[in-house]
């Protein structure tokens, strides 16, 4: 259990953000009377940005926060490094209480522990790519030679060797965002905060950057909080996903859990058109072998055998090459379940 707690890198507990001059009054009313978003706006002229958000991110995890515009996801991520102060709630980063940090300690944490990537890159237009990437180190007062070394390395990580002396405006949007990523990685932070980093890019470039980011993530194992409005992106990248609506987190789960078991109609609407082929696994749809009754002409001994952990995509490949149902096995190779073609088709459609 202690190991588990140590493994938690980012933790938010009951975080609230209410915008407006009478935010604290509104907060008090929310706590004592439990009034809702509409009442807060009506009675206090204040806007609820995020409401009672709690989540924790484990080491090495890519935690996606998915929501439509106005759902509070960008506000939420800015609480982690206190770019936005919560109205109430607790925030921990690497076990430290972020709310208790002095201004100096907070700046130190931002500079050393956290790298952030922004939707619109937010590069300094009057500085070269190198000086942009090295800016976090410059803030910390590192020497020029150290800055040059680090930025060179960081740029090579994102595949931008040879662009050090260019200016941001000379680069395409995708390249600019890679500079943004290199800058976030420059101070070798424990945590990456990515605020819709690929949303402003066109679909092809977005896909390329997602692939590159995944490859980089496999290599560096940075704990990442990734904001997106695109469920496909969240599913592609996320170890776990939190879905936000109107400032609240409505569901947290693995991509498979979200797709196969949406918490409410809102999430169900979202996942409806998501392809389940790579998210649903054989063990979810298989019939236990003891309960399976073979129909005429079926002989399970002739059936192909696959691990129960393969996804539907793989199952389809197997099933198209045989007339028999597919038998699934556990880690030690014992038969545990059967997936008939009817069951497979149902699984493709419903995800369960």
């Amino acid at each position, binding site marked *: 259990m202690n190991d588990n707690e140590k493994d938690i890198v980012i933790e938010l507990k009951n975080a609230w953000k209410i915008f407006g001059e009478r935010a604290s009054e509104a907060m008090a009313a929310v706590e004592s009377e439990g009034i809702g978003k509409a009442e807060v706006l009506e009675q206090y002229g204040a806007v609820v940005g995020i409401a009672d958000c709690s989540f924790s991110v484990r080491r090495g995890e890519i935690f996606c926060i998915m929501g439509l515009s106005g759902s509070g996801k960008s506000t939420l991520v800015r609480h982690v*490094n206190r*770019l936005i102060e919560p109205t109430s709630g607790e925030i921990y980063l690497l076990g430290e209480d972020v709310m208790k940090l002095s201004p100096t300690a907070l*700046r*130190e*944490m*931002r*500079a*050393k522990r*956290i790298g*952030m990537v*922004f*939707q*619109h890159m*937010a*590069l*300094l*237009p*009057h500085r070269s790519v190198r000086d942009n990437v090295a*800016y*976090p180190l*410059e*803030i*910390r007062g590192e020497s020029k030679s150290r800055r040059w070394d680090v930025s060179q390395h960081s740029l090579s990580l994102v595949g931008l060797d040879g662009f050090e002396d260019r*200016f941001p*405006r000379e680069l395409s949007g995708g390249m600019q965002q890679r500079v943004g990523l290199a*800058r976030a990685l420059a*101070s070798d932070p424990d945590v990456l*905060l990515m605020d819709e980093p690929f949303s402003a890019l066109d679909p092809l470039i977005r896909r390329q950057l997602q692939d590159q980011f995944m490859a980089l993530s496999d290599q560096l194992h940075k704990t990442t909080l990734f904001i997106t409005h695109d469920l496909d992106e969240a599913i592609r990248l996320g170890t776990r996903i939190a879905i936000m609506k109107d400032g609240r987190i409505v569901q947290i789960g693995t991509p498979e859990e979200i797709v196969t078991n949406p918490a409410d109609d809102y999430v169900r609407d979202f996942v409806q058109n998501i392809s389940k082929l790579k998210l649903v696994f054989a063990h979810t749809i298989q019939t236990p072998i003891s309960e399976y009754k073979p129909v005429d002409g079926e002989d399970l001994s002739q059936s192909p055998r696959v691990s129960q952990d393969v996804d539907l995509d793989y199952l389809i490949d197997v099933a198209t090459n045989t007339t028999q149902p597919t038998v699934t096995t556990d880690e030690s190779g014992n038969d545990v379940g059967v997936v008939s073609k009817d069951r497979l088709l149902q699984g493709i459609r419903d995800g369960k």
Partner: protein
Amino acid sequence: MAESIGTVEILDVIPEVDISDSVKEFAGTNGNYYTREFKKVQSSKSGYCWTFNIGSAVFGPLWATARGLWGLFWVFSLLEMVFLVMLGLGVWGELGADKFARAERMQTNYEKMMTRAETAREQGDEEGAASFEKRAENLAKARDKATAEGEIAAAGGTRLLVIAIIGLVLIKIFEGWIANIAYERQYSRWRGDRTVRSGLSWPIGLLGFVIIAFVYVVTLLRFTTANPPDVITEFPIGNTYYLAIASWIDYWFDLASQNFAFLFQGVSRGIRLILDGVETLLVGTPWPVVMAVIIIFAYRSAGPRVAVFTAAALIYIAVLGYWQKSMATVALLGTASFLCVAIGIPLGVWFARSQRAFNMGRPVLDLMQTLPSFVYLIPIIAFFGTGKPPGILASMVFGLPPIIRLTTLGLRQVPKDVVEAARAFGATNAQILRNVEIPLATPSIMAGVNQTILMCLSMVVIAALIDAKGLGYDVLVALQYAAKGQGILAGVAILFCAIVIDRVIQGKFKDTEKGG
């Protein structure tokens, strides 16, 4: 024939929009009438058609206010008033009254002269009598002339009367016609914006009546009576307040200049110190050195064409003997601009950071730019006397606003996300200002510096008024003695200074922009 797609029917004839309910709600009273008339107005292609509103024709401005058409109210009442004044003049205006009065005076004088002539003749003074008779004769001629003029004017009264009546009838027709067209427009606006006045309101109509009654009566009194009461031609207060307040201000000015003399002198000395330095540099250094440095600087920052122009301008100045004075002027304006920039940029940063400071500072900046410069020369002379430092202060009053405004503007235009990014990487406010905000606001700040310098230059003639010397003084002297040639030569020298400074700074500024 009606086909249907889903629940919407596609009809061959598009049905008419029924506006009657909303027009009734809008008009309050006479809903049916307005529905009919609005339909008519809306059906006409140009938006103008023949329609006549008797209420408006009869009550004119009063109808307009009661219906909330204030624009029409002013137009109606102005037109009506013009012709009512004519009508008044025609009816009881005593036209030619002044002429008749003059004729009458002359008649009295004529009679007096005749009496004196008779008295003289009785006393046997034939010569004197002839002279008096001669004068009486002239008076009689003048009297006849005045009477004739009076008669013509009186006859003009009848003409005025006719014009006024025709005019009023035409206005009434116009009022009746335009009413529904204007009211329909108000209705269309009201449909989208319920704060637009609707309905018929008697209290507001009454307000209109009070306004009209007051304006008509007072105006008619002014124009149609020979001797209107003083109270309506002049504000009924003498100059007691004026004199009292002016001497009160004098008192405080004197008090302040006595008690804070050390402060004003300190400021003067500070300015004088900087000015002396700059003046030594420009005036004291041998002219070939200064000229060469300026031309090389122009070449380096703005290219060969500006360098050639700069050389030509400097030669003009030198050949006409303005070298010393030009350099003194440049020193003056250089000091003023330097101080403006040194004070203005920090203030601009403060205004960009604090909305409250900006809200308080903005009216002051507006005041500094709009107040005629002669007005703020008064306190400057009162506190600082005359000479170069007060001249610099006067230039600064005019030159400070642009640098403050453009610094604030530039800082406010820095993209929020870039500032946020710097903050997310742990930058302090000072680091953000130095590394992000100031560099990104540089084009705007440089434009402000340029503006400030030119503003200060435009003050050199006015500064010369309080003995700041330089080229402005030559222009001022030329103005006093109407010395056209000297004035224009000195003016052109000022112009050349301005163009050279502007070109060089702009060239420099484009350079920094290119370099990123």
